[in-house]
């Protein structure tokens, strides 16, 4: 059964009575039928009759007549517009001429639609809109014309300005400047005197001097406007700016008033179901054209272009550098040419998938947009015009638009490579299969878990050392840094600034430099080795003894990392209010109690995420391991020839992937490391205040 609502609604829910009597009649019948009763059958018959006689319904006849007349009118208006254009004064500024034409059209339309106000909302809208235009445009035009004339007059005046006077004036200004400067100097001297007498503080002196200088500048600037020429130029400049700004502003106000009129004059259509959205969902932009939103359609057509010229062809393998789009992801260049590389096929496949995801998203987005507009139209809400769309885009679309560059960089620089690595971990890429490799399922993971094979056998050993290293080295650095911060923060310690500056150094000097230098100094005849030998008579062999290397690494990281923790804790310690401690002292707390009950909780609470970050950092601290001893010393009997005894997982991965080219298994370990790290960071961030805050 065909049914309509008796009322139309706008987007803030106001009700409007239908003007289309034919539809109104149907709606009324609908309601009666719904109420039911004895005459239900009869009513339904009546409704069907009504629908059958749609074309001959008096209202429809009237409406059609109106539409035809409107067509004729619009045609004649076009010729009228051309004629009017020719009669326009060519000396008027371009903008004013354009507005005058608009005004002419508005006047004509106003006259035409006046008679049809009661017939349809469309006509009423046109009537009200053009009435507004008719009232407002002349003011804007007058303003432009007036100001333009003023500019012309000013230009005229400029010719009359005596240039000799100008020169004289320049001298005058010079004189004025000198006077003012003298005055300024005098005032400054007075200030200095006051300072010397101890009446004002140094800060006050500086501030006062600044104010005086500002005053001097203002006075000179003001004086310079006494020059007619300068004055004249300024006037022209300001008027030009004014025309531009104010016209823009006025038009904006006008447009938002029109929006209001559009809202209170709902749209009335016979359509009852959204169709366009479903029919055109494959082609973003087309639906918008049907909805009459042409400029919006242009934007969506760009999306169409992307989908059909880039997204889909790329996914199908056209325009690829070497690969075959998504298919390449499955074949991995198997049976391809010699130059074809599986890795390239894989990456292009991943790219293709990302393109497809973007395309699907665009399709969905456009579909949703068209559907919403259509459904609103049926309810009575007019499709947004460009002015309205623009302001909505500026308001609600802002965060999306602004985040776009970040999204693009993250997708291409982070997501694509990470996905590649994840996929690589399921392939057999190794030194013998560099250019062509194939999927091998979870064999890599199996090898790692069981501790089998070339790479797997050392995995658990390395993991063990990595965990020990992370826990011990980071904890050492944290304890050292915190203890030092506590000591330096003691009230009675003097020379705090010096200590802080010195303790900052390990953090400030680029780590790679200190690590390399320590590495040199700890070599058999390096500075530290010799020093220790001289002092205690112990001959160190840090570079060849696994235990010594490990201890040295942990100490070195303690040296490096404590600096950062020291500064961090210092910052927090200084922010703890003193009254807490004073209150505790009153109650008889000992030093130890104060530390345990006040200092530790506050510092820990504030720095937990950063401390977690330190553990994560050390878990992946490639530089120190690789630069210090290259992961060595190497003990082939235990570690094979792929890793050394001080290798962390991260440097082990480096050796596997970059040096020995076991990319497949390296990727598997990377995935393992990444998941572990992500989990730990998640724990850290989850409890951080930033994520708990409600504003997010």
């Amino acid at each position: 059964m065909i049914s309509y609502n008796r009322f139309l609604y706008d987007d803030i829910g106001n009700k409007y009575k239908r003007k289309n009597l034919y539809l109104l009649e149907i709606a009324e019948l609908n309601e009666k039928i719904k109420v039911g009763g004895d005459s239900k059958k009869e009513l339904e018959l009546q409704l069907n009759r009504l629908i059958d006689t749609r074309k001959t319904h008096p209202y429809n006849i009237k409406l059609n007549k109106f539409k035809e007349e409107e067509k004729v009118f619009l045609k004649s208006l076009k010729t009228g517009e051309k004629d009017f254009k020719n009669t326009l004064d060519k000396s008027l500024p371009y903008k004013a001429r354009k507005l005058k034409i608009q005004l002419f059209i508005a006047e004509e339309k106003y006259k035409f639609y006046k008679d049809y106000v009661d017939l349809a909302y469309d006509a009423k809208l046109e009537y009200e809109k053009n009435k507004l235009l008719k009232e407002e445009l002349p003011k804007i035009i007058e303003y432009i014309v007036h100001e333009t004339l003023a500019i012309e007059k000013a230009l005229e005046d400029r010719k009359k300005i005596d240039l000799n006077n100008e020169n004289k004036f320049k001298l005058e200004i010079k004189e004025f400047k000198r006077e003012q400067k003298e005055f300024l100097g005098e005032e400054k001297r007075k200030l200095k005197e006051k300072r010397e007498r101890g009446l004002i503080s140094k800060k006050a002196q500086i501030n006062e001097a600044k104010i005086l200088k500002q005053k001097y500048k203002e006075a000179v600037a003001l004086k310079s406007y006494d020059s007619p020429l300068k004055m004249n130029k300024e006037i022209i400049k300001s008027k030009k700016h004014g025309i531009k700004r104010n016209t823009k502003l006025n038009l904006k106000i006008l447009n938002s008033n029109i929006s209001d009129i559009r809202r209170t004059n709902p749209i009335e259509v016979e359509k009852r179901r959204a169709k366009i959205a479903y029919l055109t969902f494959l082609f973003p932009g087309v639906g918008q054209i049907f909805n009459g939103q042409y400029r919006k359609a242009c934007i969506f057509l760009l999306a169409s272009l992307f989908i059909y010229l880039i997204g889909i062809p790329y996914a199908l393998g056209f325009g690829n550098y070497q690969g075959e789009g998504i298919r390449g992801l499955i074949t991995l260049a198997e049976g391809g040419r010699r130059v074809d590389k599986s890795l390239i096929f894989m990456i292009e496949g991943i790219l293709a998938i990302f393109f497809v995801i973007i395309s699907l998203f665009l399709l969905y987005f456009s579909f949703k947009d068209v559907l919403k507009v259509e459904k609103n139209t049926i309810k009575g809400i007019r499709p947004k015009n460009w002015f309205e769309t623009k302001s909505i885009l500026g308001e609600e679309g802002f965060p999306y638009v602004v985040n776009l560059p970040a999204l693009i960089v993250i997708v291409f620089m982070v997501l694509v490579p990470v996905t590649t690595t994840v996929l690589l971990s399921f392939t057999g890429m190794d030194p013998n299969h560099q250019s062509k490799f194939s999927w091998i399922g979870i064999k890599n993971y199996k090898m790692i878990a069981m501790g089998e094979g070339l790479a797997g056998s050392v995995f658990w050993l390395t993991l063990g050392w990595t965990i020990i290293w992370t826990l011990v080295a980071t904890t050492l650095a944290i304890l050292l840094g915190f203890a030092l911060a506590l000591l330096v923060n003691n009230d009675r310690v003097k020379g705090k600034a010096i200590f802080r500056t010195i303790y900052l150094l390990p953090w400030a000097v680029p780590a790679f430099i200190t690590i390399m230098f320590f590495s040199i100094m700890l070599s058999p005849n390096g500075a530290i080795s010799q020093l220790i030998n001289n002092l205690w008579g112990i001959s160190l062999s840090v570079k060849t003894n696994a235990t010594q290397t490990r201890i040295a690494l942990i100490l070195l990281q303690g040296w490096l990392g404590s600096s950062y923790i020291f500064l961090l804790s210092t910052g927090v310690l200084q922010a703890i209010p003193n009254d807490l401690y004073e209150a505790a002292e009153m109650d008889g707390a000992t030093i130890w109690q104060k530390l345990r009950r006040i200092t530790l909780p506050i510092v820990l609470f504030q720095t937990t995420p950063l401390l977690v970050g330190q553990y994560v950092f050390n878990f992946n601290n490639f530089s120190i391991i690789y630069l210090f001893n290259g992961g060595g010393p190497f003990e082939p009997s235990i570690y094979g020839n792929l890793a050394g005894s001080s290798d962390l997982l991260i440097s082990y991965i480096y050796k596997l992937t970059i040096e020995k080219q076991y990319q497949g298994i390296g990727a598997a370990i990377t995935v393992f490391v990444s998941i572990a790290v992500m989990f730990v960071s998640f724990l850290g961030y989850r409890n951080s205040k930033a994520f708990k805050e409600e504003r997010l």
Partner: protein
Amino acid sequence: MKLFRKKDDLYLSDKQPLSISGKILLIITYIILISWAVAIIWPLFQMVLSAFNGKQEQYLMLNDQFVFSLKHFEYLFNKTLFLKWAKNTILIALATAILTLIIVSFTGYAYSRYRFKGKKASLMAMMLIQAIPTFAGITAYFTMYSVISSINPAFTRQLMLVLIYAGGGIANNTFILKGYIDSISTELDDAAKIDGCSNLQVYRLIIMPIAKPMLALIALWSFIGPFMDYLLPKVLLTSPESYTLAAGLFTLINDVRTLNQPAFAAGGLLTAIPIVILFIVLQKQLVSGLSQGSVKG
């Protein structure tokens, strides 16, 4: 006169006088602090010393023979590509800082001031993805570079490096900046909006000027990053011509052909000095910025 003498003996501090055990503790504190200071300064001092010691050739020596000379610096400037490396590093660092600033200033503002779908989830996702070492993508970076550069030869390896650095820093920096902008009262925005500012104007005229200290910090961090990083340049950059300082200096101690440890010390010194000065001057802001971003955010 007697009165005055008495005043000299008065104890004027508002702290309690130290007991004997307190004095001993204070002395121990000083001993610890000073010995740690020595532990920091001594190795660094050795580096400075060896950079100027003319008595050594290819290897660093610690002996009592010290002759002041600038020959290692001369070697550094004449025999190696030190200046070129420095230039590369500065260019990469600048580009990274600028790119990061442009991207992050927008995201920080958007994440702080707007509600949009998937805000919390996307921020969390970004933070987690960020936790993955950059290293994870290294195999892909290689291939991606070769693909892009064969399509567009103007795309250099250094450009790739810049993009990787910038991409890697987005999440953290957004997070930090968001925290900072959150602490700016929204009343300012509202007032500006009532006066007719658009979103972009609020961003440009209100938020950015106030967030300048944090933006400066972010720029500084992104700028220093490439100076500190050794891994990516080593892997991605292939010719000595295109090395950054870290990768270049490493060749001075790792490669037998170019081995010259004192020159490394000299180069390290030259690299470290500007950064150290920067850190010392800005230490307060650096530290407060660090804790602010993660804590108050």
